[in-house]
Structures are given as C-alpha cells and as structure tokens.
C-alpha cells in the first residue's frame, strides 16, 4: 500500500529530476555547444570538461569568492537575526507585534521586486541611500555610484540578501526562544547568574538545534544564490572578478552555450552543496524518521 501511494511522486521525480541529473552527468562528459544542441548529439570527450574547469583560475577564484560571500552573508544574517530575536523577547507587546508584522512584510517581498527596490534606493542620481548618508554626515555621497568595484557590487548584493533573510531567522528563533522555560531563567537570575551565563547555560541548549537548521539553510541558499547578483549587478556588468558560483555556471554554460563545461561546473557546484547540506539533511531526517 505505501509503495502504491508514493509511486506517482517517485515516477514524476524520476522522470523530471532523475533524468535531468543523469543527463547532467552525460553532458559533462561531452563536447556540447550550439552545433551539438541543434543536432541533439554531443561528442564524448571523457573528463576533458572537468580538467579544463579545474585548470581555469577563474573557477578557483569564483569558488573562494563564493565561500567568502556565503560566510559573510550567513554570519551577518545569523548574528543580526539572533539579536533581533533576543530583542523581540524584551519588547512590550505592541512593539513586538509591530516589529513582527514588519518582519513578515519584508519576508513576503518577492525577491525580484526587492531587487528593483534596491536598484532604485541605491542608484547614483537620486537614490535615497546617498541622500540619507550625506544628511547623516557620513561624507558627500552626492551622485555616488555604489556599483563601480566588485567588492562594492557584492556588498550591495549582501545588504539585499541579509535584509531579505533576517525575518525568517529572527521569527523562527523568537519562536524557539519562547520555548525556553521562564522559571529556569528567573531561577538562574535570582541565583545571581550573569545574563551572559543565563543565555549560555539556559537559553542556548534550547535554541541550538534551531540555530543549526537555520545556519545550514542559510549556507545552502546563499551559496546557490543567482537571481539577486544577476539582476542587481546587472547582466551587462558581470565580469569574472565579480562572479559567484551560480553566475559562473550561467555565464560559462548558458550564455557562452558551452553546455558540456557548464554541466561540469554544475556538478562541482552541486557536489559542494551536497557536502554543505549534510548537517541539515541529517537533522531533518532524524525528525522525519522518528515521528
């Protein structure tokens, strides 16, 4: 009976996911460009695509850049998200409800819409960011262009991704924090424990599993990011020195129609994601199998 029930999903997944993954591996072993695409037939070249990617300095630079980018984004999202969650606990009810509503609103923003808003707020001619920074005396930002160097381009992408990612982390952690037993915190405080120790010994054990899940999810999302850098930096301004992994796959494989090399990069990228996702999958599996 259970096999009958999962049959449709397995069949569908096999057809529209298993087959593409098999095809991905096949493509990665082929010379497959525009001509081959039209002829529907590639030329087997063994591991040539992999060796050309692994010998390409752009691949290694992109990988390192992506890992640093991921670390920065995840670090910022988790730290700020935790701080907001801890803040939520300490607020009066009406402020808490207001802030939660605001967070949910941000969470709900479609990513593509958020990119448009970011482009508008940070544009050099009349972006509100330049105005606010100038008014607050951070310097003269009149007509300052934020997208001139790879570092700043990626910093703007980071600001967008952290802004979008904070609500999920803050709200989920707040929910976890509300499961910390009140009596325990109060008892510890009465015993004269400092607030840091209360946090470390009473609060942390309760929220650690949630922190773990949130961190691994953020790592996976931020490492595989595509839409935000692609649209915010702009397709015309993507150059090897600002590539992230997702952009690299797109530019090499799709834009340059070298699907064989693109497939090889995709496999390397998915392999890294698989390693990064072990913590999350194991955690979820535990929940899923035990229930």
């Amino acid at each position, binding site marked *: *009976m*259970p*096999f009958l*029930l*999962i049959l*449709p*999903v*397995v069949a569908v*997944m096999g057809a529209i996911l298993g*087959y*593409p993954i098999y*095809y991905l591996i096949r*493509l990665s072993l082929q010379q497959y460009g525009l001509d081959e*695409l039209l002829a529907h037939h590639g030329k087997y070249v063994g591991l040539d695509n992999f060796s050309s990617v692994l010998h390409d300095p752009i691949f290694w630079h992109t990988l390192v850049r992506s890992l640093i980018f991921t670390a920065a984004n995840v670090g910022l999202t988790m730290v700020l998200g935790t701080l907001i969650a801890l*803040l*939520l606990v300490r*607020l009066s009810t009406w*402020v808490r409800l207001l*802030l939660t509503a605001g*967070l*949910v*609103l*941000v*969470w*709900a*923003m*479609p*990513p*593509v*819409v958020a990119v*448009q808003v970011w482009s*508008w707020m940070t544009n050099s001619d*009349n972006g509100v960011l330049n105005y606010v920074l100038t008014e607050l005396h951070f310097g003269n930002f*009149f007509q300052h262009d934020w997208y001139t160097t790879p570092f700043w381009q990626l910093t703007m992408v980071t600001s967008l991704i952290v802004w979008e990612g*904070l609500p*999920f982390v803050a*709200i*989920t952690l707040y*929910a*976890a924090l509300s*499961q910390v037993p009140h009596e325990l915190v109060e008892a510890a405080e009465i015993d004269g424990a400092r607030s840091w120790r209360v946090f470390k010994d009473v609060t942390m054990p309760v929220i650690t*599993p*949630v922190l773990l899940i*949130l961190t691994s999810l953020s790592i996976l999302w931020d490492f*595989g*990011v*595509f839409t935000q850098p692609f649209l915010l930096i702009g397709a015309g301004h993507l150059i090897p020195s600002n590539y992230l992994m997702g952009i690299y*796959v*797109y530019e090499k494989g*799709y834009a340059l129609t070298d*699907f064989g090399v*693109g497939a090889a990069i*995709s496999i390397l990228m998915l392999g890294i*994601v698989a390693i990064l*996702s072990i913590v999350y*999958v194991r955690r*979820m*599996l535990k*929940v*899923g199998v035990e229930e």
Partner: protein
Amino acid sequence: MNRRLSRKLGWNVVGLLVFVFMVFPVFWMVSTAFKTEDQSNSFNPTWVPSHPTLAHFRAALHRQYFWTDVKNTMIIVLVTVGISLVAAFLAALALAKYRFAGRAMFIVLVIGIQMLPPIGLVIPLYVLLGRYGQVNTLTGVILVYFTFALPFAVWVLRGFLIGIPKELEEAAMVDGSTRLGAFLRILLPLVAPGLVATSIFAFITVWNEYIFASIILHDNSKQTITLWLTNFLGGSIGGVDWGAVMAASTLIAIPVIIFFLLVQRRIAFGLTAGAVKA
C-alpha cells in the same frame, strides 16, 4: 522598579528603530509609486507624497504584456498546483501513516531536492527541454516548477497528516467504513487547510520564480510576471521611470504578501521540520 521600566522603554526604542530600518524599503517602494516625476527625480527626497498620483499604476497596468503575463503565470500556477497536490498528498499519506522499507531514503530525497540550488540544474533542463521542443513553451516551465513544488508539498502535507490521531481513523473504520471511506470522511476535511497552504505556497513559488522563467521563456507574450517586471529596467533608454517601476513592483508584491500572510507559519514549520512550533 523604575530602572526596570526605563530599561523596557530603551528596548522599545531600539525595537522601533529596527522596525523603521527593516520596513523602510517597502515603504519607499509604495511611496515612490504615488509620487510625481519631479518628486522622485530630485536628490532631496519627498518622504510622503503630498499629492498622490495614480498615473504610475495606470501606466503599469496598461503597459504591454501585463495582462498576458498575469494570465500565463496563473495558467502555470493552476496546472502545477493541480497535479502536484494529488501526487504529493498520496506520498505524504504514505510517509505519515506507514513504515516501509526505503522510507528514510525517500525522506532524504524529498529534503535533498529542496536543497539543490536551481541554477545547478539549469544546463541539463535547458538542453533536455530543447531536445523535446519545450523551450519557449509554458509546458516547459510547468514541468520544471512541478519538480520543485512537489517535495515541499509532500513535506508540508506530511506535517498535517501526522497531527491527526490514529484513533480518529480507527473510530471511523469501526463504524463500518472502508479504509477509503474513513480516509475521505475523516482525513480529507482535516488536511484541507494543508492542501490550501500547499497551493498557496506553490502560487508564491511560481509567481516569484525568475531563473527558469528567464531561461526557458523568450517571447514577451509567453513570459511570467517577474520577467515582465525585469524587462522594465532593461527596456528603458536613458532615465529610468522609477515611479512606474515601483508602481509595477507594488502591484506584483501585493498578491504575494496577502497570500504569504496566510501561510507564513506553515512555511517556517516545513523548513524546520517542526523543530519550532511556530
């Protein structure tokens, strides 16, 4: 007591500042959408438009392909939701109610697939869809979205089914119902909210998706609503009409925000496997 009160006041001030900081971009989007051209083009910003205009909204609604792309998006949503609900429901039932060999493996697959970055599958899916003549067709994107909507639907529905006590089912069977009868009369009404939540989630996913839509759908008349929005910036020569872009952005964000409010708790629950009871 006084110290405690002033401390609370301090936290509240910080809370309000965070609120302003987080919500500002959304406020700025809506505010710009209602401003006149001079107001949005000046370096000194107008915070709240004194004479709100609807001109930008009218321009956005009348811009070419808006309604066509809304229609395309809705077709994709309906087909994706329709098929994936049935398949996902059956699989979720199996996961929630039976222990079977390969169950753990199946769960790993369901979770693992959600973790794959879509961009990693762009190359083979593009080549395959091309091979079967599905590039630049709605069917092509539906197939792709289906793959990504299905695992999440299975996972969320499973969460709903687990919450239903076995006794309820058994009681119905004792009353002389068949397994199918018990299922239809007892389970279905109880998971109805789960089916709604899953449909809404699929709607949001499809409405927001960019990568595959941009790679598969080339014709302006065959695109989805996110592509319509991004074409705004690409299509403008010289100065960008930010008022119109923000009006269009607002229009596109509204349905997602409304739907999201309805299912936000479920999404958080699904992503953390109920580690947090939101």
